[in-house]
C-alpha cells in the first residue's frame, strides 16, 4: 500500500495536549491485537461514539503536543483505522510522532494551524509539498520540514511495507551513508 500524495477531507479540530490515554484507553488497547477493533475506541476519552461519527478521509487538526504520554502505537493505529488519513498539529509528542511515520500515518507539524482551520472545514494535505491547504479560499500553510527518509518511509506506507520492499530498514541505509 502506497500513501496517496494529496489527501482531501473534512477536519476534526482538537485542542492542546491530547494524550494517548484520551486517544485510546489502556483497558481497550491491551485486550486486542486487531487494528479494526482498536479503531472502535478512537478518541474514547472525548467521545465513546466517535468511531460512528468519523468518516473515511477525515483529517485531524490539533493543537500543541498531540499524542503525549504512553508509547502505545495503538493510538496512531486507532486513528488510521478509524478512517482518518492524516494528523496535522501545532506540535507532536515525540513517540507518537515516530510511531505515526512507522505505521504510515502522515503527521504534519504546522505551527498556528488551529487558528486557521475550523471544525469540518474541507482541507487538503499535500504530501509532496508537505503543506496543508484550506479549500474555501485556497490558502496554503507549509508544514515544518522533516528528514527525507521519514518522508520516504511515509510514501512507502510505513515500516512493514518498507521492509517488504527493501529487505532492510531506512536506518540501515542511513548508517551506510553516515549522515549528521
Amino acid at each position: 500500500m502506497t500513501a496517496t500524495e494529496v489527501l482531501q477531507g473534512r477536519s476534526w479540530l482538537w485542542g492542546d495536549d491530547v494524550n494517548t490515554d484520551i486517544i485510546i484507553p489502556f483497558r481497550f488497547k491491551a485486550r486486542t491485537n486487531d487494528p479494526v477493533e482498536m479503531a472502535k475506541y478512537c478518541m474514547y476519552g472525548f467521545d465513546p461514539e466517535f468511531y460512528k461519527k468519523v468518516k473515511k478521509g477525515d483529517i485531524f487538526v490539533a493543537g500543541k503536543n498531540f499524542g503525549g504520554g504512553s508509547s502505545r502505537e495503538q493510538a496512531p493505529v486507532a486513528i488510521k483505522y478509524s478512517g482518518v488519513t492524516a494528523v496535522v498539529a501545532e506540535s507532536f509528542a515525540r513517540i507518537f510522532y515516530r510511531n505515526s511515520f512507522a505505521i504510515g500515518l502522515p503527521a504534519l507539524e504546522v505551527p498556528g494551524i488551529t487558528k486557521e482551520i475550523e471544525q469540518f472545514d474541507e482541507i487538503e494535505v499535500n504530501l509532496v509539498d508537505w503543506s496543508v491547504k484550506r479549500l474555501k479560499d485556497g490558502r496554503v500553510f507549509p508544514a515544518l520540514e522533516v528528514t527525507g527518509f521519514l518522508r520516504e518511509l511515509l510514501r512507502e506506507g510505513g515500516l512493514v511495507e518498507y521492509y517488504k520492499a527493501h529487505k532492510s530498514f531506512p536506518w540501515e541505509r542511513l548508517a551506510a551513508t553516515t549522515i549528521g
Partner: protein
Amino acid sequence: MQQSILNDDSLTFAEKIISARAEGGEKPLHPGDITVLDADLVMAQDSTGPLAIKVFNEMGVEKLWDPSRVHLVIDHTFPASDEKVANLHNLVRQFVKKMGCRLVEGSISHQHLLENHLVPGMVLFGADSHTSQGGALGAFATGIGSSEMAGVWASGKLWVRVPESIKINLLGSFRKGVSARDVIARFIGEVGEDGGNYKSLEWNGPGVRELSIASRACISNNSMECGCKLSVFEPDTTTREYLHTVNRAPLMEVYAGKKATYKEEFEIDLEKLEPQVAQPGNVDKVKTVTELQGQPLDQVFIGSSTNGRYEDLAVVASILKDHKVKAGTRCIITPASRAIFEQAIDTGLAEVFMKSGAVFTNATCGACVGTHLGALGENEICISSSPRNYVGRMGATSAQIYLASPATCAASALEGKIADPREYL
C-alpha cells in the same frame, strides 16, 4: 576516536553518549543531527509486545538479531485479568519460545532491567514510554513504539535525533516528608507537559548526592511526563556503590563537558521544596499539598514503576504502622518488582500494610493503567503515586486522579482525604 569524544568539553551528556555510541563513533554530533545507534538491551511489554510481534511477523523477518538482548516482560496486566489478556500473554510466551529470547513475568520492566541488566553507557530501547528510567544509571534509555521495536528486533539498530539538553541543578537537602517525586513534580509543574519534549534532561548539582539510585530512577522515569527523550544522572559514587552491590561494571562512563551548551537551565532548592500534588487531568497542574489538603478520596494507590521501590514502601510503612486506613477509602499498594515484594515480606512491611487495612498486591502496572487491581469507577476520586492522571487513565472517564509522592499518598490514606505527610513523619 571514541576517547576524544568522551573528553570533548563542549558536549552535553546526550550529545556525548550518542556521538560515542553512534556507528563509527568518529565525530561529535550536535542537536538536530540524525544518526544510528546499536542497541545493547531492548524491551517490550505485554501491551506493546503483541503488536510488535504482529508487525515482526508481517515483515516476514525470521529471527532476532540477538535473542540474548531481547526482553519480553509481562507486567502490565499480570497475572491476566481475563481471557483476552491471557491470549495476548500467550502470544508473547510463544514468541519468546520460538525466538529464544528472554521472558520476564511479574516484575515491572523498568525495575527488572535496573535490578538485573542495566549499566552506565548502555543503549536501551524500550517499547514503553517510561524506559527513560534507565537514565538513572547514566545510560541512553528511551521509549519507542511497537513497529520500531520490531525493526530493532530484526536489525539491532535504530535511528535517533540528537536532542537539545536541559540542565537542572539541584541544591541543598530534602526536608522531612519531601522526596524525589516532589522534585520531578515541581519541575513538570514549571515547564509543562511538553516542556521537555524531544529533550535530554540532565540532572546536576550538589543535591544529586542526596538521591539514591531508587530516587534517581523515580525522577528519570517520571521525567517522561514532560515529554523528554532522556533523563540522565552521570555516574558518581552512589552509582559505583550500587553497581558494586549488584556485581556489574559500566560499559562506558559519560560525563557532560564543562563548556556544554544547554537550551535551558533550571535550579531547584531541595531545602525549600514542599510536598507537591498534581490536580486531575494534566500532570503539569501542580500545587503544594497545603493548597489541596482536605480533598476527600475514594481510593489511594501507591506503587507503579515511578514509585514502587523499596525506599518508597519503607516510607509508606513508617506512616501506616500501627494506624488504620480511613474507613470508606481503599488503599492499594503495588511494588515495582518481585524482588521488592520479597524484601517487603522479609522486613515486615507487608505485614504493616495488611494490618493497616491496605491491599498489598503483586508487582504489576495494574491500577496505574486501570487494567486490573484497582481500576476506578464513575466519578471516583483517587490520589496516586503513579505517573499519569489523564482522563480515563485508571478507569472511568469521569474519575479524577491526583498525583503525589508515596508519603503524601500514605498520609492521605489515613485521613481519607489529601493530607500533609509532614505531620506523620
